[in-house]
């Protein structure tokens, strides 16, 4: 049930991001200053923002940014994490020590603090957000895959592959990584939720996507100045973030229950 709800939410978000211009005919950057802060109406179902821009058009455009950042961060993080995690777990020894210490240090930084730090010094931009979130994102995958690799390398079928002359790269790609894949998929689904919130947080703090590019985080930040006179500026992007993140969390939780039935209580 959770998987279905999550899947429906995520599919709607992807469709909204893809077909945004069809759903709302307005230009996300087009201004109608005379109608600024107008509440929802028939012509503008979600109202207009502080510069008279259509909030629905900006929301749909922002969905593209959120999903794109999520996808980019998860792709980079999971690829790097799986590669380093499998190397550390399969080979062990000094190489494992080095990778594990780097993971320990990066894990010593709470949440998105390192991302804030990196974006603060590199300068605010979408590329830097993806880079910063990937720098902290890969460690979770690496730790997960390392654990799986440590277990898998001792299993009979891996020993057999080694006896048959398979090289380390072949064993890692054909045997170690596939065994870790279900757990990685769960982590990646939950990671999408994390990356979307992190991007919105950074943009909210003025460290992410820069105006006039619409992002749900910057929309929320702009809405803060109009809590009294136009609360819809704050409510709309917040609902979008919460629902999309909830969708990925539902999907991730549901998949985790499938992968590890012990957790489904």
């Amino acid at each position, binding site marked *: 049930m959770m998987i279905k709800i999550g899947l429906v939410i995520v599919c709607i978000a992807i469709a909204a991001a893809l077909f945004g211009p069809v759903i709302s005919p307005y230009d996300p950057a087009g201004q109608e200053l005379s109608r600024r802060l107008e509440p929802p109406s028939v012509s503008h179902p979600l109202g207009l923002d502080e510069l008279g821009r259509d909030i629905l058009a900006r929301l749909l455009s922002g969905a593209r940014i959120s999903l794109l950042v999520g996808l980019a961060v998860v792709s980079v993080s999971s690829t790097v994490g799986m590669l380093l995690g499998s190397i550390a777990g399969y080979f062990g020894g000094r190489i494992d020590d080095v990778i594990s210490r780097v993971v320990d*240090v990066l894990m*010593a930084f709470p949440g998105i603090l390192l991302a*804030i730090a990196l974006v603060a010094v590199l300068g605010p931009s979408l590329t830097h957000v993806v880079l910063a979130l990937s720098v902290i994102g890969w460690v979770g995958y690496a730790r997960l895959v390392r654990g799986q690799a440590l277990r898998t390398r001792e299993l009979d079928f891996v020993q057999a592959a080694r006896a048959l002359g398979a090289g380390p790269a072949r064993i890692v790609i054909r045997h170690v990584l596939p065994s870790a894949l279900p757990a990685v998929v769960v982590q990646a689904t939950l990671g999408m939720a994390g990356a979307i919130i992190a991007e919105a947080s950074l943009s909210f703090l003025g460290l992410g996507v820069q105006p006039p590019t619409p992002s749900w985080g910057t929309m929320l930040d702009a809405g803060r100045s109009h809590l009294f006179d136009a609360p819809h500026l704050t409510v709309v992007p917040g609902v979008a973030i*919460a629902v999309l993140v909830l969708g990925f969390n539902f999907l991730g*939780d549901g998949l985790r229950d499938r992968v590890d039935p012990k957790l489904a*209580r």
Partner: protein
Amino acid sequence: MLRYLIRRLLLTIPVLFGVATLVFSLIHFVPGDPAQSMLGEGASPQEVTALRHSLGLDRPLLTQYASFLGGVIRGDLGMSFRYGTPVTREIGARLYRTVQLALAAMTVALIVALPLGIVAAVFRATVIDHAAMTAALAGISMPNFWLGPLLAILFSVRLGWLPVAGTGTLAHLVLPAVTLGAALAAILARMTRASVLEELRELYVLAARARGLSRSRAVVRHAFRNSLIPIVTIVGLQFGAVLTGTIITETIFAWPGVGRLLIQSISFRDYPLVQGCILFISVTYVFVNLVTDLAYGWLDPRIRFE
């Protein structure tokens, strides 16, 4: 326990060393010249040279690194570019507010999460359980930078019950604490449910019920008490999330803590202060995790013998 304590302390040293190294290298990630970036395009070459000298950027990298580490050990994190005062003094002046907010948020989280988790476990697989856990998942999914303004719209703008921002009275603390504590409450509620469910399956709970104890007494007196160990751990481990959360919460509610100082120092490109705030938050996080691990080892002997 002493061996476990020493081993755990020794393991913390390389982590702290790594954290300090990473924070040191931050300023060197600045594209171009950090001094030029701090002063802006309009600064004269003399001003840039003077700032480079005062920041020590004109010295060899290894000398800078040794000097940075030495300063960290002595508690000297350099001078703030914006305020012209020691970084430690600026952080120290705002520390009380951040600690106050973090503790208030954790209190809110515990007050909400523990009853919610216990009720969900006791009424497992019922409407109550599903409602409680859906609420918890919604709490995790709801970003605090949205929850904060929403609460402000409702309780400050519409109802006029609470101040929208600032400090001074206890009323000022309510909205920031609830905003910051909500996600933690959601995580803790899920953890409490799982932990109490685990204990409810144990034979000693059945035995307590067989001895005539009421269901609520068996849960509160026996199952809940034993399920506290993982909950304590999660509270400790989530302190990092609370610390990071203060950055956004303090920004939303103009709360004058270390988190807001960090964001302000980023806007002013006050890199020594940025480094100081990040180092401070990270080191606090490492130490809280250390204390949590030690507490866990103390509470559960199996951990320290592993």
